[in-house]
């Protein structure tokens, strides 16, 4: 994926952008500090949002969670529940809800008077159609389900009246309400959901109830959204429920990162998506805002295969855990806008604890662990035992491009403790093959809105994803996972989640790096009021242009 050509290109692009930045500064650019006197919100104005591509299209089941398409989906659709940056849930289209029968039944009370952009009502029947689509999808029509929706115990949903929906599960589903705030669970008109996928690919057929609607679009080029004057059902948590302040948002595709950055820096557009981390500081100095929201989910890090050489040995796993200098990665590859990990889930997940001592950088301890396990330093500085070198192959996660630089640094760091890391850089297609081959360390990125998701991935119980290749072989992990999955109150579940985090880290099952920032927003100083949700997308619903 990162050929020398692309790297050289990225380098040159970076140089070009930095040169431009310097020029602008030298010319005494007009940028002012965005924090100075934000003033009162005003209505009207238009923004242009530059993004590198909308390649995967508009079939919602495929692209609602995409880093790219997700930005647009968030403006034209609503969700039942709003989840804020800290993981707190609050009413949106569901103005209240009840949790009954030990989290096996839920009653959603919907806001009245909500309509889709074609004028049809967003009522209980429409919500039921959406719930069924999220839970089951329709493989016969090429529509997939929403991966994180609690489908395995979903028993059904029914509209008890025009504004009330009853949802049933065969076992406790504590994570259900949180899932309603997940970016996969966007509300679309039942008419849209019933279309064949080819028809759903047409963005103008995507009828949502959001503060904006599609005005015009040209695939691969530009997409113009206009506000709905009758919108009056925004999430109260954002402090504004009426129509959006901005008149239009134009998403414009510009592939090249340096061109996107420079276009905003020169005042020709207001927002650019995903800038180079190294440019953040100088852009901030010029008065630009750079949003680095974190999503709720797992941190950037590695799932460890406990059955593969050499991570089938506890001392090796622990040595890697203590042999990685995460602070050096944060300072070298990223900036201070990235937060250090304290556990293997992101710090804004309410149940995240501080277990950083379980993976503190302690090279001497790492060396001793390996010495004691019989791994002795060989001729080239790498450890060997019985003629076998302590080595493994690492592939950066292509879904998070900065991980290539991260893994290069990790290879150097682990060399210091005598572990040989071979890097194999692959593209998205190659990465699926790597995952299937179950390498010793597999780099992952995964968001979730409820900590219950964790229980479903660690072991192979209940069709779990078996991240560590333990199957059901670790009784303690089985018990902790089961306890989380079957918990019916949040307090006891949070306690178990804490125990689980400590255990997974101590055993070296998951090797965290830093908290993950997958979406960066470069914002002009004249754009105010941008907020971020728990899935790390910017809300332009509340944004406005200052005079």
């Amino acid at each position, binding site marked *: 994926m990162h050929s020398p050509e692309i790297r050289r290109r990225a380098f040159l692009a970076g140089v070009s952008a930095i040169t431009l930045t310097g020029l602008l500064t030298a010319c005494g650019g007009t940028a002012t500090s965005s924090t100075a006197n934000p003033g009162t919100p005003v209505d009207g104005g238009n923004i242009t949002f530059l993004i590198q591509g909308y390649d995967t299209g508009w079939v919602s089941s495929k692209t609602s969670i995409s880093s790219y398409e997700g930005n647009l989906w968030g403006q034209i659709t609503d969700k039942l529940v709003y989840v804020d940056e800290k993981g707190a849930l609050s009413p949106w289209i569901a103005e209240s809800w009840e949790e009954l029968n030990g989290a096996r039944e839920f009653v959603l009370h919907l806001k009245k008077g909500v309509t889709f952009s074609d004028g049809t009502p967003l009522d209980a029947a429409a919500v039921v159609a959406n719930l069924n689509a999220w839970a089951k999808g329709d493989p016969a029509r090429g529509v997939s389900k929403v991966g994180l929706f609690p489908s395995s115990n979903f028993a059904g949903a029914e509209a008890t009246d025009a504004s009330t929906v009853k949802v049933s599960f065969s076992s406790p589903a504590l994570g259900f309400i949180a899932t309603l705030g997940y970016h996969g669970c966007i509300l679309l008109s039942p008419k849209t959901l019933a279309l064949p996928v080819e028809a759903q690919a047409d963005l103008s057929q995507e009828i949502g109830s959001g503060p904006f609607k599609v005005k015009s679009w040209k695939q*691969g080029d530009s997409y113009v959204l206009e506000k709905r004057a009758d919108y009056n059902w925004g999430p109260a948590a954002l402090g504004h429920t009426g129509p959006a302040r901005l008149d239009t948002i134009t998403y414009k595709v510009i592939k090249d990162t340096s061109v996107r950055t420079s276009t905003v820096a020169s005042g020709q557009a207001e927002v650019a998506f995903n800038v180079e981390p190294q440019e953040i500081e100088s852009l901030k100095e010029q008065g630009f805002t750079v949003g680095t929201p974190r999503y709720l989910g797992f941190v950037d890090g590695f799932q460890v295969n406990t059955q593969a050489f050499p991570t089938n040995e506890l001392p090796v796993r622990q040595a890697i855990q203590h042999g990685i200098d995460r602070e050096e990665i944060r300072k070298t590859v990223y900036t201070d806008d990235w937060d250090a990990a304290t556990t293997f889930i992101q710090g804004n997940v309410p149940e995240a604890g501080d277990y950083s001592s379980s993976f503190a950088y302690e090279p001497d301890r790492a060396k001793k662990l390996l010495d004691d396990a019989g791994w002795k330093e060989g001729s080239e500085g790498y450890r060997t035992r019985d003629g076998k070198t302590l080595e493994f192959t690492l592939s950066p996660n292509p879904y998070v491009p900065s991980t290539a630089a991260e893994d290069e640094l990790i290879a150097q760091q682990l060399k210091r403790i005598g572990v040989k890391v071979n890097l194999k850089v692959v593209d998205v297609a190659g990465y699926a093959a790597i995952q299937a081959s179950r390498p010793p360390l597999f780099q992952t990125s995964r968001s979730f809105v409820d900590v219950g998701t964790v229980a479903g991935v660690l072991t192979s119980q209940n069709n779990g994803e078996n991240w560590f290749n333990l199957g059901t072989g670790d009784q303690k992990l089985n018990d902790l996972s089961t306890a989380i999955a079957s918990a019916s109150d949040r307090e006891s579940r949070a306690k178990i989640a804490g125990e689980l985090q400590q255990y997974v880290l101590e055993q070296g099952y998951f090797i965290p790096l830093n908290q993950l920032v997958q979406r960066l927003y470069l914002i002009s100083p004249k754009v105010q009021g941008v907020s971020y949700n728990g899935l790390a997308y910017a809300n332009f619903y509340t944004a406005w242009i200052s005079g």
Partner: protein
Amino acid sequence: MTSQYKRYALTRAAQAIAVVLLAYVLTFLVISVLPGDSITNSLRDPQHGLSEEEIQRIVAFYGLDKPVLVQLALSLGRFLTGELGFSLQSNLPVAQLIGDALPSTLGLAASALVIAVVLAVAIAYGAHYLPGKWAAVLRSIPALFLSVPNFVIGLVLIELFAFRLHSFTTTDPNSAAATLFAAITLAIPVSAPLAEVLIASLDHESRQDYALVARSRGLNEASLFVRHLVKPSALPTVTMVALIVGELLGGAVITETTFGRDGLGTVVQKAVTGEDQPVLQAAVALSAIVFVAVNLIADLVSPLVDPRVKVRTEVHA
């Protein structure tokens, strides 16, 4: 003679069809060798959290679980009946994706070709007639043009003309001004081989007896160039232009990306990275058709430019 020409034309047409079909099959097989497919790749993003079984059910909907040869036969059958199908990535009709992108690329490539030819003629003329030192500088320009990557030229032009001189805006890359700069970006490396061939032809032709005779008749160098040298020197250049069409289509990928233009190049690039077989198949077939057609036209134009070619063609046909 006429039947001979007809046979020649038919043979060339059959060759052209064979080239297009081979390109189609080859592209299909190359993409099939790559691991994964468009659907699996996008659904396997860990963010989706879908199980392998759930992914496979969607893959089956698109028929991607069938053996490669069956898929090839189905795809070829659809292509031959003029059905281009739907993109696996965006689910939009392939005809729409390509139809939307084509005018922009054709405009860019045509402008670039004109600029490249003008640039090449200017360099060749200067290299031939300017005093020694300047001629030497001009003769080294094609090598310089060839060695600077396309995207560097693009970024420098954007930096200078969009951000500093405000001659165009990067948010409107399809404007006339932006198209001009994109065309210059694409034209510069393309003009280099043209200029080199033209310089060599001019050198060769100006040493011929007829040039000497013309000079002895008192013709000045400019008239000699226009009236006598351009035509015979143009023959290898015409052949070169036909070959350059391929380069223009290839270069458009980078130029379009740098300038943020949507075009055939961008469509191909996205289809390759996304393993979007239907789109890639159609784009490759279209490019092959254009390339073959242009070369056919060049073969037909050559006899008009230089009668010597006609004789050879007739003898060998």
